[in-house]
């Protein structure tokens, strides 16, 4: 087979690996938006802190890498719980649309710079034990990227199934569709919103643990991912899981091929130009949700 084919296949694999991570982060944003029409800016820092939690678990406590993914999961869940407790829950009662967003921007700036002071700007080398290279013809990938795809796709599938088939998932979708009516049906909103944020944040933390060995770990690791996650949720359609998954993989692929054929410096440029075009042409995203009050 020609080299051209291998190149395409190689970049497709690279794109899918990054896309999987983006989907894990973006799904959380979309879920939170779905149940309470809010964006959590600090979501980015759950990715970063999840990565650091996993790193220090391996480094200091001698834990295994797979277990450290679980640690990052828990770290993300705790952070999500705290942000809900301190920001979203108290502000929800006052019923202002933009204030929680501004508050989470504050939390994000705070966490990011707190991490900068605590961990320093020098990137941490997070070595995964899964660094063997698998070779298929002229296509290379590491076992770590295989692990990322497996963990990401299984957790995404689990989340999808949870939302689709369990009672709690159904209740969450009911809140997303109509909050007041869902409340009348006896659904405990405050608890379910908290649960959504915790699940979403845990996924973000987990993504951080898997991101560490692929990129490097810095206090800004999450920030570079989250801006793309924002682009993904809008391109996919805010609050829509299937759209987010498609858009996440799409952005991963765009990024890989931009790096190959243009320049690695312009990937953000291409992704955000796509986002702005999408907002102009079809602001409801690839798959539109029924409510369009924000557009």
């Amino acid at each position: 087979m020609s080299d051209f084919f291998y190149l395409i296949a190689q970049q497709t694999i690279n794109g899918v690996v990054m896309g999987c991570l983006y989907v894990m982060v973006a799904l959380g944003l979309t879920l939170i938006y779905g149940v309470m029409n809010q964006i959590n800016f600090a979501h980015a820092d759950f990715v970063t802190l999840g990565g650091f939690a996993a790193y220090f678990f391996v480094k200091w406590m001698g834990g295994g890498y797979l277990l450290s993914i679980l640690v990052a999961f828990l770290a993300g869940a705790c952070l999500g719980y705290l942000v809900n407790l301190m920001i979203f829950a108290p502000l929800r009662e006052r019923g202002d649309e933009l204030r929680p967003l501004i508050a989470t921007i504050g939390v994000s700036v705070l966490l990011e710079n707190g991490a900068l002071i605590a961990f320093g700007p020098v990137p941490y080398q997070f070595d995964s034990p899964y660094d063997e290279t698998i070779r298929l013809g002229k296509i290379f990938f590491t076992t770590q990227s295989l692990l990322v795809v497996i963990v990401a796709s299984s957790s995404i599938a689990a989340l999808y199934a949870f939302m689709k088939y369990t009672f709690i998932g159904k209740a969450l979708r009911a809140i997303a569709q109509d909050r007041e009516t869902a409340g009348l049906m006896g659904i405990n909103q405050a608890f379910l919103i908290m649960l959504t944020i915790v699940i979403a944040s845990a996924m973000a933390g987990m993504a951080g643990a898997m991101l560490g060995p692929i990129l490097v770990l810095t206090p800004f690791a999450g920030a570079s991912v989250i801006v793309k996650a924002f682009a993904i949720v809008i391109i996919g359609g805010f609050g829509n899981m299937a759209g987010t998954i498609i858009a996440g993989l799409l952005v991963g692929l765009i990024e890989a091929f931009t790096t190959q054929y243009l320049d690695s410096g312009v990937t953000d440029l291409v992704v955000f130009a796509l986002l702005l075009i999408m907002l102009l042409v079809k602001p409801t995203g690839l798959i539109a949700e029924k409510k369009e009050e924000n557009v």
Partner: protein
Amino acid sequence: MSEQLSILKKIPSWVYYLLTIALIIVLPILLGGSAYWRSILITISLNIMLAMSLNLILGYTGQLHLGHSAFYGVGAYATTLLIKKAGFSFWMAVATSSLLAGIIGILLAFFATRLKGHYLAIASMAFAIILHQILLNWGSMTSGPLGIYGIAPPPPIALFGLEIKFNNQVNLFYLISFVALISYIVLNNILKSPIGDTLRAIREDEVSAASLGINAKLWKVFSFGVGAMIAGLAGSFYPSFVGTLVPDAFAVIESFSYLAMVVVGGMGTMIGPIIGAVVLTLLPELLRSIGDARLLVYGLSLTLVVLFMPGGILQAIQLIKTKLIK
């Protein structure tokens, strides 16, 4: 006490302007020969312009705009490049680049007229990221991440036969604070006119505003245009003050610091963003002994103010005032 307060209200506004001018003249003299404090004074003046102009869009028109750093960056880079590459005179370059920033603000406003709330927040942030990436990647024009060095201060001007040079920071401070004062007067007049009521009506309820015959789209474009122009004007003085120009000075995170100034000071008031800009520029400097805590302070104060004092420092001052009267 209440009598004294009512006397305060009767003082005509020109007295306040005169007091402000006196304060501007006295401040660099009071702070002595310290170059450090003088550069902080200049930074405060620039931040006041940025916070006031963001407040027009965010506080008065109610548009959650997170890309203000883009307008600041356009002003800074356009001025420098027009002088360097196109041979413009300094003042022509300042005028042209603030106009350019205004036009770019109007471009962003086309998004604002179609989007609301969170969508606008993300679109405006994407806008600032794109501009930052262009500055980083357009190496032949902007020298990319290395930046542009050795930018000259504004050329001297002749005033009443006196030549005023701007290579000293006191005169530069007078110049920039004069520009900031003019911007304040312009904004204040706009907001006291019926236009101010129109913008506030759009902020409170766009549909009701439209039903009263207000063309919300047009006024959003106006608000973004004027806001961007003033931010661009601030930006065009930035390079000649700092002497160097790097893209990271206009990264998205800087938009968040202007947001913090507006919210911490008191959103939707004239004086609030000024207080916010002064406090949030001074506070990190006073905390310098702990380390570079600038953004940490911004993040913390932004969160605390939104949670506990949504009207910002201004609300706190008014609370204290009413308690004193009682």
